[in-house]
């Protein structure tokens, strides 16, 4: 709760952020031959050290683009247009020179990617890749860096780290590769760790271990964590706050507890209904959200979710014309035209029985 209340209680001036990470009105657009792709369209949220934010949404909802923006990994200029503000520990990243952001990258904010096999260079040993990550930001001898790599691998739960450090990525199993990726991301004690679908490519049995590891290490290092996923089960496990994204915008932003107990956005309901549950009758079918994610070139006017929303136009709400927005100060909210009491009632009476 604290991550949100602090921001909600207001900040001294709009220029000085009070949170460790503050994203304000972030907009990222890509120029393509087919038109302008608005991958992220006005996103605002904040995150404190030691807390975990889960960003949830379908493919193409702008989750990964957001994380790459925070990492400063979009090619500047050229086809990418990025506006808004990203404040990380008092430093603004969108307007910062590329080389400044580069120096923060890996040290202040680090990232774990979805597929640990393709994310590691096949020609270098796991150890060499961790050593490299450490030595960019620390002026130490190869020997010290190597010791650090061994320590980190051991910390990430790789058995016999002293010998496995010289293995190549293809000699590791999938789960071990992701552990090695985590070791590599955490080698510089980053204050912010972004995990982009960290468990999607892994065995179900390994998924829980990796999530546990991320949580343990977060407690140990006190870093802020952003977990990007389409899997509500993952965020349920680790997230303090949840940001639900749809069509490049945030549609619901609240604590994990609130999102899971009393979600208010029809899209969030849809996500929950499409999640398989063990305690449900096998004969019941999953309820997928009808339709497909919107084109980010021609985002539907008004609420981007209206073509798929079962409550569109209910009681004359202007779904097709007016864009529902979250509070611009980054406090919790729901981007929906249905009045809040009615939403709660709908959830209780129409959605819960189907879950």
């Amino acid at each position, binding site marked *: 709760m604290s991550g949100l209340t602090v921001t909600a209680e207001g900040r001294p001036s709009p220029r000085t952020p009070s949170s460790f990470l503050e994203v304000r009105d972030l907009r990222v657009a890509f120029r393509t031959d087919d038109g302008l792709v608005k991958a992220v369209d006005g996103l605002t949220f904040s995150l404190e050290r030691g807390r975990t934010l889960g960003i949830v949404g379908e493919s193409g909802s702008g989750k990964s683009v957001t994380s790459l923006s925070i990492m400063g990994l979009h090619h500047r200029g050229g086809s990418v247009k990025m506006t808004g503000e990203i404040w990380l520990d008092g430093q603004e990243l969108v307007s910062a020179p590329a080389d400044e952001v580069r120096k923060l990258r890996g040290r202040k904010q680090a990232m774990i990617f979805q597929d640990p096999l393709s*994310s590691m*260079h096949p020609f270098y040993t796991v150890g060499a890749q961790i050593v490299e990550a450490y030595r960019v930001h620390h002026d130490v001898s190869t020997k010290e860096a190597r010791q650090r790599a061994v320590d980190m691998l051991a910390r990430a739960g790789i058995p016999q780290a002293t010998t496995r450090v010289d293995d190549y990525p293809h000699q590791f199993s999938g789960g071990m590769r992701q552990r090695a990726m985590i070791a590599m991301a955490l080698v510089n004690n980053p204050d912010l760790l972004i995990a982009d679908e960290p468990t999607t490519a892994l065995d179900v049995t390994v998924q829980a271990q990796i999530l546990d590891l991320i949580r343990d290490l977060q407690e140990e290092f006190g870093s802020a964590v952003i977990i990007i996923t389409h899997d509500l089960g993952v965020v349920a496990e680790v997230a303090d706050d949840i940001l639900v994204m749809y069509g490049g915008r945030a549609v619901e932003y609240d604590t994990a507890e609130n999102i899971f107990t009393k979600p208010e956005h029809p899209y969030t309901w849809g996500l929950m209904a499409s999640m398989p549950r063990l305690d449900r009758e096998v004969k019941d079918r999953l309820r997928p959200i009808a339709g497909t994610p919107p084109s980010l070139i021609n985002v539907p006017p008004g609420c981007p979710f209206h073509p798929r929303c079962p409550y569109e136009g209910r009681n004359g709400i202007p779904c097709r014309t007016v864009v529902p927005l979250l509070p611009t100060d980054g406090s919790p909210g729901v981007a929906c035209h249905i009045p809040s009491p009615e939403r709660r009632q709908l959830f209780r009476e129409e959605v819960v029985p189907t879950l």
Partner: protein
Amino acid sequence: MFAYIIRRLLAAVLLLAIVSLATFAIFFLVPRFAGATSADLAARYVGKTADQEQLEAMAEKLGFNDPIYVQYGRFVKGIFFGADYSTGPTVEHCPAPCFGYSFITQNPVWPDLIDRLGVTLSLAAGAAIIWLIVGVAVGVLSALRKGSFFDRAAMGIALAGVSLPIFFTGLLALSLFAYNLHIFPPGGSYTPIGENPARWAYDLILPWTTLAFLYAAGYARLTRAGMLETMNEDYVRTARAKGLPERTVVVKHGLRSALTPILTIFGLDLGLLLGGAILTESTFSLPGIGKYAVDAVVNNDLPKVLGVVMLGAFFIVLANLIVDILYAVVDPRVRLA
């Protein structure tokens, strides 16, 4: 790793044996299928004036009436241990590796080949260094600035480079730089490196650049394609996410992967050239293996052709072997396979 090298080595030896078998078959077995008799084969070794009886005698002396495997054995033995040719009163020993004597010059083939190898080696090595550096550098820059003016210009020139034959670019270069501007020596100039290294390089600049232009163009296109692919790999994104300087990302993470296919092609190209850069040597009248091969074919000089083919095959197999081993050094995943 050791087992891998041994395996490749054995494969290389086996391959050479097969090549020798095939070469032998082409020259001594295939004509028989086409209906040639031993005497017809022997006719290639003697003057046109010989009558049938002399040919029969010659065929017997050269062993063309022996079973084919005995003949092949003799051919292989000649390569490894040398051969003895009786010329009537005396027996002449042809030291190993013996491919026989040229029909035209009466010289043993092997020493002639070795003489000419220096020229071909100088040409190929010099050109290879130029085309590797230029081709890869242009390819990388083009890929990094995809769609820029540099990229378009470079790829346009590269397309011309791969399309224009040596005997066009070579003659153009000769006519312009040697015969009109008199900056570089005319065709046929060659000085061994041992004699005068500066002169050696000066004489070879035109052939080097002409040959390198052709290959650099191909390498630039290959490198560009490879770089465009690897720079989009996840591990390059990881390298960036570590905060590595862009230079390190490009060279250590991107180029390193993009170079592996280049390595393979480079080995093949170099091996092929060492067996004779036929067009370049002919265009610039350089006395190398390629020129030797052309002369041999034109004059129907069988022992010389045999020698060139085996030498060329040897270089290609050797280059492949080296590439295979280097590949394992470069890509650790290969070592397991």
